[in-house]
């Protein structure tokens, strides 16, 4: 990388340590972004997500037909008029795939955010305090990990009834134990470092050490976990919709569309199923490419 050849900056004056650390941090962040944007897999991931976000925001303004109320002849194969064909009710599949990102792009990030927030809090507490609290919570986390998320989510959604809000909470809270385990192990290696001992000797409270000393240092793994969880949230929400307990009709959600049309594949009507399925695949792959790039850049 070519840097402008400037005279090396003078050592920061001792009287203003905060400003120097802030600019150092900002510089580190800029450097991180620059490295990220040179990775092709990161760029591809961001581009695909941007396309779907644009489709979600612009929606009906850019779709060729009305995705909800324009009815043509049912199950016509892809043609010039309908690039992706029409579904069983005669709605344009392309238009529905374009607006189909809307629900999942709201529900999945919220679920991931909730899971990471709760899980990070639990992980910080478990890793820092150790002892009895850690033992008990670790057992509970272990019990949650013994169950496939899809299955527990299915059970809970049957009991509580399906709505987007319930899906966010169920998926988010089921992700929390997994996040807690990751954050806990990151905290375990941090708490033995000198800066934590120094803060303890200064007489700082546990809450201060956790939030101001340890948390910034485990932010890297937490951000990676957030992107990874975002990918899994799309995976999970799409699967739940496919199983009929996630997003509900008349949502044009991809998983739901697949579930309504998959039985027609046997009869050779593949287009209303394949295109939403490919849309799901492109989104999760894109998110995972972003997560993977973040992980390898932060580990370097």
């Amino acid at each position, binding site marked *: 990388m070519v840097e402008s050849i400037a005279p090396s900056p003078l050592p920061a004056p001792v009287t203003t340590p905060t400003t120097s650390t802030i600019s150092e941090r900002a510089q580190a962040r800029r450097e991180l972004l620059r490295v990220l944007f040179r990775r092709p897999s990161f760029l591809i991931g961001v581009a695909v997500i941007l396309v779907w976000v644009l489709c979600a925001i612009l929606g009906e303004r850019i779709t060729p037909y009305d995705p909800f109320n324009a009815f043509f002849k049912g199950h016509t194969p892809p043609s010039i008029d309908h690039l992706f064909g029409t579904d069983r009710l005669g709605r344009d599949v392309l238009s529905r795939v374009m607006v189909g990102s809307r629900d999942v792009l709201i529900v999945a990030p919220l679920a991931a955010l909730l899971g990471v927030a709760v899980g990070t809090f639990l992980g910080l507490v478990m890793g820092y305090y150790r002892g009895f609290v850690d033992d008990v919570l670790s057992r509970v986390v272990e019990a949650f990990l*013994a169950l496939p998320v899809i299955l527990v989510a299915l*059970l809970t959604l049957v*009991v509580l009834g399906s709505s987007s809000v319930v899906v966010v909470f169920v998926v988010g809270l089921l992700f929390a134990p997994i996040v807690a385990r990751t954050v806990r192990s990151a905290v375990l290696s941090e708490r033995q470092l000198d800066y934590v001992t120094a803060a303890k000797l200064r007489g700082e409270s546990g809450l201060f050490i956790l939030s101001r000393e340890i948390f910034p240092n485990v932010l890297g793994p937490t951000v990676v976990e957030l992107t990874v969880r975002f990918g899994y949230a799309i995976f999970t929400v799409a699967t739940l919709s496919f199983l009929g307990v996630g997003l509900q009709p008349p949502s044009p959600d991809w998983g739901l569309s697949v579930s309504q049309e998959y039985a027609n594949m046997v009869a050779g009507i593949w287009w209303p199923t394949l295109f939403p399925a490919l849309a799901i695949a492109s989104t999760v792959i894109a998110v995972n490419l972003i997560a993977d790039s973040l992980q390898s850049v932060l580990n370097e």
Partner: protein
Amino acid sequence: MARFIARRLLLALVTLWLLATIVFIITDVLPNDVGRTILGPFAPQETVDALNQRLGTNRPILVRYVDSLRGLVTLDFGDSFVSSKPVLPQIIGAVGRSAKLAGLALLITIPISIAAGLFAARRRDRVADRAIVLLGVTLSSIPEFVTATILVVVVGVGLRWLPVLATAPDSADPLTQIRYLLMPALAMAIVYFGYIARMTRAGTIEVLQSDYTRTALMKGLTIGQTMRRHVLRNALVPTVAVIAVQVGYLFGGIIAVEKIFNYNGMGSTMLFAAQHKDLPMLTAGVIVIGIVYMLATLIADLIMAWMNPRIRLEAER
């Protein structure tokens, strides 16, 4: 070794108790009226009360909790709301059919993934390695039902190589049955390829950098001999752990795959129970799958302790 096993069994029992408690909280504490949950908002109050009376869900919460734990110990999960028959025999039959499917998926995915992982580790950071890692990330991030859909469209409808449904005619010979199971098994195998291959790669790379590998190579062993005698045994420890975890998660993904291929296993049973709000069936299913997961991790722990005595000794201390 006996102490190690005893310790692991005790921990598994504690986990099982916690798991039963979690399931109890979801099914009995979250809904404030179980009868209303089952019958929906429009049922008359008398019907709801009668159902709560019949199910015993109007009793105090502690009584119900003790009762559910007793059910777990005596393996009596109650009767199905739909068929009024005990749920356990139905669950066990369904688990057996799903195990066939899951077993075939693992049989396909484990050797291929381990081979790919070893291959990638030997060619670290070269094109083949990058390709395998990227492929793994990509494939494991796609939901099973999406992979299954794409497979059906391409292999089943387009090329007509394999049957689109999973259940063979009753009279079919074992080979034909496997042919019918091949596509659903493949859909799951593809998803788990990434996890296992990546773990094998990471474990192998770590061991290849170790001092004892260098010693083995310097005393004149070929790379093949070193791999067989020194590397594999240690490198595959994390792989065994991840496979055990996948066995549990397989039963999450299998629900969607069984739906696509119309296969009558655990997934279909759970889905049918979910549609009819058959809580005893769902509860029993979740707990049985939890037990399957715990057995898998227990076996994995034993294999790992056998592969690497340090794990065993550390646990005994």
